[in-house]
């Protein structure tokens, strides 16, 4: 099975987000960049499939040079090859442009049975790129996969839907997006980390893919501005240590009479 895994390079989920000078981006000073958490599940599954039989795993990331560390992390966790599509500053957050670039890279590299993505890239929080890549590559997709079994040129995938669990069958090649619960991702081994440092990363530009980044950026969404959410605070906090029942009654009263929510 030949898989590719789309890795988004995102701020660590524990990062404190501050506004950058440009007004529509975050301040990147001090941000630790990591593989987007859902993409870790995707990568782990692709590596497990390879280990269970045979195959090859390529990790692909579109972005500026910091994605090289993301790709090396992917190699350290078991990927065989890594591809950086350079650029991405002007198409940031623009799912359509990102999907067009990634779909073009997937077609150029060719020969994948499976394309893995995360169900959501944390940061952009779009949950769009996987299904968009599928449509642009004319492939079926299953999003939010919790379990996948392969055989006879097909995948049988389980996904959670509102109210239950769907079992979906699709022919390969296919795009799958990984949901938490699919597996428990491994930590990279020391040996893997050492080897990944020396590994070669193939690079290609958006122009190499026959696309124009400026045109792509204009066709999709633009981040006009970024703001921090209004700080809360000054909530009404009751002491329930001595008389929990009295505090509970007071809370219920406040929720009914003041907040009017029960």
């Amino acid at each position: 099975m030949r898989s590719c895994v789309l890795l988004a390079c995102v701020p660590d989920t524990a990062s404190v987000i501050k506004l950058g000078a440009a007004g529509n981006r975050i301040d990147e000073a001090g941000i630790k960049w990591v593989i987007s958490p859902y993409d870790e599940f995707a990568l782990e599954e692709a590596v497990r499939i390879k280990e269970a039989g045979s195959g090859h795993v390529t990790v692909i990331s579109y972005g500026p040079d910091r994605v090289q560390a993301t790709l090396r992390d992917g190699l350290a966790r078991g990927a065989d090859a890594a591809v950086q599509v350079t650029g991405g500053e002007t198409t940031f957050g623009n799912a359509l442009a990102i999907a067009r670039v990634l779909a073009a890279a997937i077609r150029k590299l060719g020969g994948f049975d499976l394309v893995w993505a995360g169900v959501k890239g944390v940061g952009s929080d779009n949950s769009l790129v996987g299904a968009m890549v599928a449509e642009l590559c004319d492939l079926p997709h299953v999003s939010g996969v919790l379990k996948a079994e392969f055989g006879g040129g097909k995948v049988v995938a389980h996904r959670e839907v509102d109210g239950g669990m769907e079992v979906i069958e699709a022919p390969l090649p296919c795009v799958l997006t990984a949901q938490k619960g699919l597996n428990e991702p491994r930590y990279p081994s020391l040996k893997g980390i050492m080897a990944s440092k020396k590994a070669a990363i193939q690079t290609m530009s958006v122009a190499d893919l026959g696309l124009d980044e400026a045109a792509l950026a204009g066709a999709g969404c633009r981040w006009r501005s970024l703001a921090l959410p209004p700080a809360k605070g000054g909530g009404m906090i009751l002491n329930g240590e001595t008389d929990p029942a009295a505090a509970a009654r007071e809370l219920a009263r406040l929720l009914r009479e003041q907040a009017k929510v029960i």
Partner: protein
Amino acid sequence: MAGILCVIEQRDGTIRRASLQALSQAARLTAPTGAAVTAVLVGHGVSGLAPSLGGYGASRVLVADELRFARYTPEAYAAAIQAAAALVVPQAVFMSATTVGRDLAGRLAARLGVDCLADVVKVWLEEDAVVAVRPVYSGKALATVDGGSSSPVVVTLRPNVFAVEPIAAAGTVEPLSVPEVAVRAVVREVVAKESGELDVAEADIVVSGGRGMKAPENLALVRDLAHAMGAAVGASRAIVDAGWIDHAYQVGQTGKVVSPTLYLACGISGAIQHLAGMSSSKIIVAINKDPEAPIFKAADYGIVGDALQVLPALTAEVKRLKAEG
């Protein structure tokens, strides 16, 4: 004047409330200009639901009622919405950011060659632009975004953020003809969850438990309160990872994003990744024995105390108030 096409989701013969929220918002946005709101309903045996949509602002309802749409599949549904968009030529396509809506939006947008503004909490129309505010970085920032030169712009609206507004109006109902398309990813079966449980992502009230509930059996206290309030149950990742409850209930960065009217966090510290999933709730209540727990910074109301003692008392009081009416 191009209007809005609103995708209506139904489940088991009932229109989802989240879709009515999206439809009402479309009606509010087009009211000043008189631009049309068209609803599109896809399914099997759903025609009977169509007339009611006029009462939420759809002047026209397109219905694709065929066996091949009996179950949601992104390929078939995207083809149906594409056919509706070709008829209406809207400025925007609205749908709710439910599991289905979020899955469909990407495929539909790519098929139309346009972008999508995902999971928005505010949306408005400008002369040549659809503009929205969406939480990004797990709610740690709010981005104001527009769809660039995308036309139409696909927009998914976060459930429970926009009000449903019935109006005294009716819409015309027309069948929608959808070309045959290859559906490669097919649903083999659907395994239903235990019945009677509300889905946490859509509920108006959510009561969540965390590690402070001390033991899996104590989650009964959370469930009891949820029952008394007509709420859904949620969970922190700590207790999902500990195996106390299924991941379907997890709220947060790697779980569900919820936006209920009322969110109660019981024995939850309020880690940044948990806050990511619930900080857009309208009223947040924290019950935690540690007055320094970060959850209190996000809370509108709180009790510093032992959840194991506070919850039964709160449940009893809620039942009493409900009985009073």
